């Protein structure tokens, strides 16, 4: 096996159909960028789940004077009802599940509301008494929120029990759908990349059919005849996947870390080290894709 000969053949083939090679590069680039983005999105979802699920609390909203009559027939929850609810939280039945809880009264709720809606005119029309007093409950195991929900739903003076995780789940569902869409687009693109690679290789083989004919006549081994073509596809796809890896890394560095992380400082985002985990996988996938599809194409084209 003579290395320089094989390299020369590859260079020759790549130069001969530049436009096809460029399209292979672009298609692998774009498809693998989608794959990379989708996997980063999955990592992001995983990270956010870890972070937020641990901090998610169960809110027991108490009745206010404006609560709907069917759940709060007695109107504003009285101090007695508050004490009853708090006693239930302290009861030996629930105590083992609860890490801690705290009570938020009307004034605290109003302060929080004002802070959230600062500058918004809605703050002028809301009075402290309209905002629910709330028991915020942190659980030892956030996934067991049902125990609290079931214990307090329908209890007198309770307007609603709400697990914050249900809000989070909505966000995660959206993110999940986005990453599934990205994977869907990516797989379509990967199929076209594979087809494009095999067409390119077949074209390349056709334009070198004289050489191939002579190689077969003088007894070059199949491996030796096929290797330049397979490597040709691999080289093109490697360039594409390196570009994709670069794109994914720069998205992490400049968009996620440079923009999102500064805008939303209390959220943990995927870091460059996550990106560095994804990048080699992308390059590996690109090389594998090219090797398989060009190997398949050339094997069908070249019979002994």
């Amino acid at each position: 096996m003579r290395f320089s000969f094989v390299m020369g053949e590859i260079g020759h083939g790549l130069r001969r159909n530049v436009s096809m090679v460029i399209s292979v590069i672009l298609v692998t680039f774009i498809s693998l960028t989608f794959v990379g983005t989708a996997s980063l999105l999955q990592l992001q979802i995983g990270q956010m789940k870890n972070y937020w699920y641990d901090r998610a609390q169960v809110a027991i909203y108490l009745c206010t004077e404006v609560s709907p009559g069917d759940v709060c027939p007695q109107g504003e929850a009285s101090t007695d009802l508050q004490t009853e609810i708090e006693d239930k939280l302290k009861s030996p039945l629930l105590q083992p599940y609860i890490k801690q809880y705290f009570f938020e009264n009307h004034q605290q709720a109003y302060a929080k509301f004002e802070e959230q809606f600062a500058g918004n005119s809605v703050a002028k029309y809301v009075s402290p008494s309209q905002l629910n007093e709330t028991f915020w409950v942190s659980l030892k195991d956030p996934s067991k929120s049902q125990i609290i929900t079931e214990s307090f739903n329908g209890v007198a003076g309770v307007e609603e029990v709400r697990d914050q995780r249900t809000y989070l789940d909505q966000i995660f569902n959206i993110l999940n759908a986005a990453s599934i869409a990205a994977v869907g687009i990516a797989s379509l693109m990967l199929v076209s990349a594979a087809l494009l690679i095999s067409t390119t290789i077949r074209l390349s083989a056709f334009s070198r059919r004289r050489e191939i004919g002579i190689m077969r006549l003088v007894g070059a081994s199949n491996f030796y005849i096929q290797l330049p073509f397979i490597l040709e596809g691999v080289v093109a796809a490697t360039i594409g996947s390196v570009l994709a890896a670069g794109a994914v890394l720069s998205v992490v560095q400049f968009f996620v870390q440079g923009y999102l992380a500064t805008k939303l400082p209390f959220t943990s985002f995927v870091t460059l080290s996550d990106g560095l985990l994804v990048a080699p996988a992308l390059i590996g996938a690109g090389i594998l894709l090219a090797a398989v599809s060009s190997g398949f194409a050339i094997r069908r084209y070249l019979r002994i």
Partner: protein
Amino acid sequence: MIRIENVTKQYKGTSRPALNNVSLEIEKGDFVFLVGASGSGKSSLMRLMLREDTPTSGSVHVMGENLVAIPSRRIPFFRRKLGVVFQDFRLLPTKTVSQNVAFSLEVIGKSQGFIQEAVPDVLAMVGLEGKADRLPGELSGGEQQRVALARAIVNKPAVLLADEPTGNLDPATSEGIMALLERINLAGTTVVMATHDRGIVDRLQKRVIEMREGEIFRDQRSAGYIKTQTDSHPVKSWNLAIDNSWNLDGDN
């Protein structure tokens, strides 16, 4: 060296087999002319010996290899022991004479040292010293066929298959190529040459195998192109037509 037994070759979609129960044996060092009209089965026979194709039935042995049963990964190694030349030379137009010859050694993994030694030697043998750096397009037909011959024999094959090597050449040039083939044969290489060139076959008086309609019509040692007058088989009119067209090629 070459043994073909009861070979029949039927191509798909044809009623008449291209080869019909053909048997022949060629010894080491033989020089054999394969003659016959177009469509008589010469090319099919050559393709079988090259393992470009397999017979429908029968067996083909070349240089000890059973070409019916040979696994496909061993075919390249079989072909390395074989040289082939064609009517259309099949040179690479973008490579020089020496690069064309070197190419056939490079692709079977020969070392650069071997190539640098073997290529000038073989070019000198075929009488192309001083033309090593020419492109095929700059050479005459005879010179191009010499390059093709150089490429076929540079790896010292035991068998040389020549499919109408003089088909595109004028008689004077053909003589030169035939002299070269005889020299190659004298050096011990078995030569099988398919040809329509009556003058060459008549002059060399080698073994002649004549094919007609997929069968061996005659197999004679030291014979000419047309079967001698004692032969009772009539020569068909289409065969004469071929002879006339060959005359137009210029045997004068």
